[in-house]
Structures are given as structure tokens and as C-alpha cells.
């Protein structure tokens, strides 16, 4: 798919402010994030989970458990394209049993990735509860799933694509909306 020239909707400072606010919201809603395990969904969800963990631990003065959960093998569209490369799953040492797991992803769209993540997570244990934090919610849900923490609501058309770029992978922090052509 080719894309037309994109429009930057969030720049580096916007992303940084959104993450700081998300960190504060997580601390507030979880009474200090003591029992929280952040699980990033690869690729960019992992970078976001690490950034959130760092912010939360700076504010709270104590480290936060952080890991990664690859959902590739649990996707409902696995058979609709060639098998995809797998990405790392990292379960923190304390495990997820009885923890308050917060899934972290860059863009919430159909909700299918999150459904797959819930399945993948259940293979590793039974969390006390699972919540969802996303940097961008662009709407158009196809499943009954919603985010508990949203960095930015971005109403989009289905014909558009939302691309989150993070310095860990893209050498720049920004969010771009493009018209898919």
C-alpha cells in the first residue's frame, strides 16, 4: 500500500506529555501501581511500556514490573496472510499470576490485537485484573473492547492510517495520519 504525504498530529513534546499524564492516571487508578505489571505488545507497545514504567517508577520511587507479550500466534487473521515472524515475549520474574496487568499498545483500532493479547496472556497465568493503556484510540472497534487509559483520542476515517513513530525504532517521536491510497 502506498501512502500520500502524512500529517503530523502529535509531535515529540505532545507524546511526552501524554505519556506523563498516562503514568499519573495509572498511579492514581491503581493506588500507587504497587501490584502493576505493564505488558507491552510488540513492537511499539513494548517501547511505550518501558517509557511508562520509567515514568511511574520516577514518580513513585520504586521500580515497576514490565514485560512484553507477542500476540502473533493468537491472531484471528493468522490464516489470512503468510505466517508472520514472531516477536519476543518477556514475562517478568514475578509472573503475572495475581498481578494487575496493564496491556500497552500504540494504536487501538479494531480491538482484535487486544483480544489476541488476552488469549496469549491467559497462557501465562491468571492476573487479578487486566487493563489497557494505548497512546492513540482511533475508533472503529470491531469487538467489545475499550481502553482504560488513552493518550489521545484521534477520530479517523477507515481510509486513513495512523502511524506511531518512536525514537526506539524510528529515530523520531511523532504520530502521523496518512490517507491510504
Amino acid at each position, binding site marked *: 500500500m502506498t501512502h500520500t504525504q502524512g500529517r503530523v498530529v502529535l509531535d515529540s513534546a505532545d507524546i511526552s506529555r501524554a505519556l506523563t499524564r498516562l503514568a499519573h492516571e495509572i498511579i492514581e487508578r491503581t493506588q500507587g501501581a504497587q501490584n502493576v505489571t505493564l505488558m507491552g505488545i510488540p513492537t511499539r507497545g513494548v517501547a511505550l511500556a518501558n517509557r511508562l514504567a520509567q515514568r511511574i517508577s520516577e514518580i513513585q520511587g520504586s521500580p515497576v514490573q514490565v514485560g512484553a507479550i507477542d500476540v502473533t500466534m493468537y491472531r484471528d487473521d493468522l490464516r489470512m496472510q503468510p*505466517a508472520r*515472524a514472531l516477536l519476543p*515475549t518477556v514475562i517478568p520474574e514475578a509472573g503475572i499470576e495475581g498481578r494487575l496487568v496493564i496491556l500497552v499498545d500504540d494504536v487501538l483500532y479494531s480491538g482484535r490485537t487486544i483480544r489476541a493479547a488476552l488469549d496469549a496472556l491467559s497462557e501465562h497465568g491468571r492476573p487479578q485484573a487486566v487493563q489497557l493503556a494505548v497512546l492513540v484510540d482511533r475508533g472503529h472497534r470491531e469487538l467489545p473492547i475499550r481502553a482504560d487509559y488513552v493518550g489521545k483520542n484521534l477520530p479517523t476515517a477507515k481510509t486513513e492510517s495512523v502511524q506511531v513513530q518512536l525514537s526506539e525504532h524510528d529515530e523520531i517521536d511523532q504520530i502521523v495520519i496518512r490517507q491510504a491510497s
Partner: protein
Amino acid sequence: MKHLLSTADLTRDEAILILDTANQLAQATGQGVGKLPPLRGRTVVNLFYEDSTRTRISFEAAAKRLSADVINFAAKGSSVSKGESLKDTALTLEAMGADAIVLRHGSSGAAHTLANSGWISGSVVNAGDGTHEHPTQALLDAYTLRRHLRDGAGDLAGATITIVGDILHSRVARSNVHLLKTLGANVRLVAPPTLLPFGVDTWGAEVSYTLDDALVGADAVMMLRIQQERMNAAYFPTIHEYSQRYGLNQARVNLMNQGAIVMHAGPMNRGVEITSEVADSPQSVIVEQVTNGVSVRMAVLYLMLGGNEATV
């Protein structure tokens, strides 16, 4: 690529994708996930014309951990012993809806024939054909080498691997030479002249008749089994003499580079091509090769059957 028939068909990127995928699958298994879902509803048939308990069990474990249904078809005691041809067996398996056939056969080229015959629509994985190839063994060897020599990432550029023994009859050696060269390693082959195949000089490996010389500067040594069932005592005077000249003992291991590893595709003839002392030493990764075999075969099956068409 729809089938895995020969390591010569793999590009460097494809080979690395298989090894990386094996890495992730090994990690998932290590984290206590008993069964992974991607091959749910797929049927894998293990069609074994030769006895090979370890390869069959390894493929069976790999397919089951990915939630595939597994049918084991051993030629002995089956319709094959009543004279059924490979073609008719294949047509039967096709009619039963096999998505992949893992074939072990005594004739070189059997997997190629099955894959290109038009008898079946599924994928074929060569699990050893005669003295030709055994690609998943080479992949698990490369995976093991990469773990120990390259921290489990990238290729094997610059590594020196010495392969010793019955090169002539060894499908493991053939598959390994192709793959190791694709991954950038230097390969040395060591054997008595009678156990080197015609044309070995065209393989792109250094060939030597002297084990000690070929071990100096090596990062790993792969010992091949002396296949007594294929020998008829015609290739070397006595087992004892072979063992003296081409057997691996601790003194020879010490000639290799610091941190070098000892490999064997099994089953081992202790006291013939390898001493027990070496086989059980910390430098030996022979047991680990078996574990890695399951991960690598999971990766191959996942990449072939996980999507709507084969990725590798």
C-alpha cells in the same frame, strides 16, 4: 518456498528467519506455555520409511506443541509392507487431508519426488532422504552453533566448523555444508579418502585427511556417526584404526579454539567416533541439540503452515 527439501534452497535471510522463529518458540516453551495455537486444525503426517525414533518423536513433539493433529505412518507393518508404492500412499494421505507430510525415506530424492509429483497439495518436509539431505538437522545444528558462538543472533560469519567422519554417506554433512556456507561459516571436512564422496572438492569446503590439523582454530566440531549398517567393512581396515585416526578424544578437543563446542547428530557410537569423556564433557552440546531440534522443527512447521501460504 512451499517445501523444505534441501538447505541449498534457503537464502541467508530465510535461514535466519527460521532460526529467529525457533528462538522465539523456544522462549515461549521455556516460559511454561505448554501448547501454542497456530496450527490448530492442521494435519501433519509423519511418513517414515526408515526407522528413526528420535527424528520422528522430535517432529511429533514439534507439531503437537503447535496444536496440529499428528498422524504417524511407519512403513513397517503398514500397507507399504504389502507393496504399496509411495505414490499410492501419498494419494491416500492426500485424500485424508494432510496439510504437511514429513518424509523419511531410504532413497535420495524421495522428498523431491513427492513434492513435485502433483500427488499431494500439501507441504513436504524432508526428514532425511537416503544419503542426500536432512535439512532440519542442519538447521538445528546451526541454531545450536549460533546460540553458543553468536549469542543466538545473526549469522555464523567467520566461524570455523569442522565436520568429521563418514561424509560419503552423511545427509547431515551435505545439508550442513550448504547451510553453514549460506550463513557465512568456514567449513572443514575430515575423513579417510574412502569416506569422501566424488566431487567433494566442489562443495566449497576445505577437505583434509588429518583430524588434528583440521581442529586447530576451529570453533566447533561435528562428529558423524560411523554408519555400520552401510559399511560392510569396506571403507577402513578396522574400527580400532578408524577410532585412532578420526575419533575425538579430549586431547584433540583441546586443539580447538577457547570455548569451542562438540556436536554429534546421534545416535553416538561411544568409543568409536567419540570417547565417552568428550561426549559427557561440558563442551559437549549433544543433549542440547535434541532440545533445539524440537524448537527448529516447530519453526519450520509454523512458517510453512501458520499462514495462508508458506513464508519460507
